[in-house]
């Protein structure tokens, strides 16, 4: 709980208002929060069923289940629309929240009385902003001087009219009160001098306006849809001073600096793709094209791509888009948070192979010593038997062996070494298939380095099959190094580390009776084989 409490201190919550002089502000606070993340809306979007969520939240949510999180009505990502009004309400509220909270905390009575009014006013202002956005403007004012037949279209939200206002200049619609609603002439007002002009000209004009230059309307042929030219704008449409006033009040220039608004087209929404139509390679290429990591199995590639789409498209909805670099960082964070723990569900968060190794060093040493003892015992028995056998078999056979040996140029020892060192060079094999099957497939196997016994034991595994207490058959090299139990653990499953061996060699090795002595593997190596044979593997991978 301690850790939790530490974290809590930094999290604002609607309950903060419960102890204030205006506890009802908690309702407002809660109303500006996303149902999914319980935090203030970030790039809010509205669903077809009229519920608002953070863009990223609802996108992730729809990825899991294509339903609205509030009412479970069917919903699709492509139908989400930005909710600029809510964004502004949140921005405005967040800007005053701390001050407001301090003001209504109710300690200094004298001061509070004055500030509380402001607080209430601010709260009302919030409501007003939302209200204004919801109420359609009186059409009598809007449609002045426009062809009458167009009106019907407009009521349904004419695309030409609607889009530019809501997308290109999101701060505009709610920042005026009802009385001051601008004429719907397809033009936008300069935020500084309030002159109306085409949107494309605004950003250019703002620089001039700030520099104090007068606005020169461009000469263009009069169009039918907008008979009035900007220069002939009637002065009665809106007193220039009022909107500027309200704007400066609700839109701190630091929040929405018009000049820093990103050029549209820089961030275009990315389309979804059907993963079943993509092969691994194609998907990898796709990811590379997008500039994100392209490693890992297909499932991870898919998840990563989906998350990237969510991040990217949510960023498109944001009034203050972040850079691609920031998004990449976020994707990286997602990867850390979602992919790693999911793969290591059985491991405690502070698990460390080294610590485990250290902690149980004695037990391991014990086991090793025991195993060593048993192999020595066994070898002794073998040696005795061999001796007897050899004596019985007589000189003839011995001579045959001698002959065979001299007729085959490569001595067995180096051969054994070369054949078996191949897998050893390929890196460490996890000690048993048991350990590896516990590792989810999405994690690169190279990471599951053998945790308990390090050093020579890694590759000594490969001698396992040769070490059987056999007399008559040392399996052919090819067979000996196939390592059936490790095939699943092989990090390079498609690559055959052992090219087919020379049939002559096979014949040579398999046909020769077991000869103890220098031709066998060095004792140092042999002991591990048995150790590994005898220790049922109990690595940390299995731990609960």
């Amino acid at each position, binding site marked *: 709980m301690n850790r*939790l409490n530490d974290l809590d201190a930094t999290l604002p*919550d609607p309950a903060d208002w419960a102890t204030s002089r205006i506890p009802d502000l908690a309702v407002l606070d809660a109303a500006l929060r996303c149902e999914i*993340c319980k935090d203030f809306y970030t790039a809010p979007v509205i669903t077809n069923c009229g519920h608002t969520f953070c863009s990223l939240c609802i996108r992730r949510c729809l990825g*899991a289940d294509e339903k609205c*999180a509030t009412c479970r009505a069917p919903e699709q990502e492509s139908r989400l629309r930005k909710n600029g009004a809510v964004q502004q309400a949140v921005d405005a509220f967040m800007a005053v929240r701390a001050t407001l909270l301090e003001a209504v905390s109710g300690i200094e009575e004298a001061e509070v009385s004055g500030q509380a009014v402001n607080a209430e006013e601010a709260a009302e202002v919030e409501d007003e902003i939302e209200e204004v956005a919801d109420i359609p403007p009186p059409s009598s004012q809007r449609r002045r001087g426009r062809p009458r037949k167009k009106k019907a279209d407009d009521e349904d939200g004419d695309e030409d009219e609607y889009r530019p206002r809501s997308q290109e200049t999101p701060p505009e619609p709610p920042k005026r009160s009802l009385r001051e609603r601008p004429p719907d002439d397809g033009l936008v007002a300069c935020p500084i001098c309030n002159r109306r002009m085409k949107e494309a000209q605004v950003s250019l004009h703002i620089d001039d306006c700030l520099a104090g230059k007068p606005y020169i309307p461009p000469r263009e042929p009069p169009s039918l849809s907008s008979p009035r030219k900007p220069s002939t704008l009637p002065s009665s449409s809106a007193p220039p001073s009022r909107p500027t006033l309200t704007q400066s009040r609700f839109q701190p220039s630091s929040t929405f600096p018009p000049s820093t608004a990103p050029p549209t087209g820089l961030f275009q929404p990315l389309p979804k793709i059907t993963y079943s139509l993509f092969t691994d390679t194609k998907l990898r290429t796709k990811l590379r094209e997008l500039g994100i990591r392209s490693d890992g199995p297909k499932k991870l590639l898919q998840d990563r791509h989906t998350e990237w789409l969510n991040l990217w498209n949510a960023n498109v909805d944001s009034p203050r888009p972040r850079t691609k670099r920031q998004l990449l960082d976020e994707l990286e964070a997602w990867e850390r948070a979602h992919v790693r723990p*999911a793969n290591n569900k059985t491991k405690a968060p502070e698990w460390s192979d080294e610590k485990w190794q250290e902690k149980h060093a004695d037990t391991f040493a014990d086991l090793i010593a025991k195993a060593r003892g048993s192999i020595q015992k066994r070898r002794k028995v073998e040696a005795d038997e061999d001796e007897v056998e050899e004596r019985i078999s007589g000189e003839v056979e011995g001579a045959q062996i001698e002959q065979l040996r001299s007729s085959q140029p490569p001595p067995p020892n180096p051969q054994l070494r070369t054949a078996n060192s191949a897998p050893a060079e390929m890196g460490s094999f996890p000690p048993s298939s048991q350990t590896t099957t516990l590792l989810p497939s999405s994690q690169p196997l190279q990471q599951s380095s053998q945790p308990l016994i390090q050093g020579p034991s890694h590759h000594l595994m490969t001698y396992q099959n040769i070490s059987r207490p056999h007399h008559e058959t040392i399996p052919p090299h090819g067979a000996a190094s196939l390592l059936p139990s490790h095939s699943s653990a092989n990090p390079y499953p498609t690559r055959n580390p052992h090219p087919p061996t020379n049939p002559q060699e096979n014949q040579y090795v398999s046909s020769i009776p077991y000869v103890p002595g220098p031709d066998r593997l060095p004792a140092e190596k042999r002991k591990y084989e048995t150790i590994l044979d005898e220790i049922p593997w109990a690595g940390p991978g299995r731990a609960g």
Partner: protein
Amino acid sequence: MANLPKRIIKETQRLTEEPVPGINAVPHEDNLRYFDVSIHGPSQSPYEGGIFRLELFLPEDYPMCPPKIRFLTKIYHPNIDRLGRICLDVLKSNWSPALQIRTILLSIQALLGAPNPDDPLANDVAQKWKEDEKTAIETARQWTRTHAMS
């Protein structure tokens, strides 16, 4: 646990600060996604007076997927099986990220108050419940006394 989502922290905070009457949920010190829950049997139900222990786990994808929750105390209920698993739509198909621990626990408490033998998980219990409700309720009361009141 450094990457515990804000939402989980918030929910835990709310649960501890403003507990729902009759419901108690405390996260484990070493795993803040794992909660020990106890629910008081609702009044005027055969479970009245009993305190039922449950375990609740918030999976990695929470809140995109529902919390995993299970009764630890034995209970005689048509929608809860021998292993303590619960048949509740909001824990499965009707889960929504807008729901939270608090609402889920309330739903479970409500389920105790209103067993639904028509959509059973424990078939034998449901059968009894339908055939002879009186006896079934008596059994539930008996079980509550035996298992949930110690």
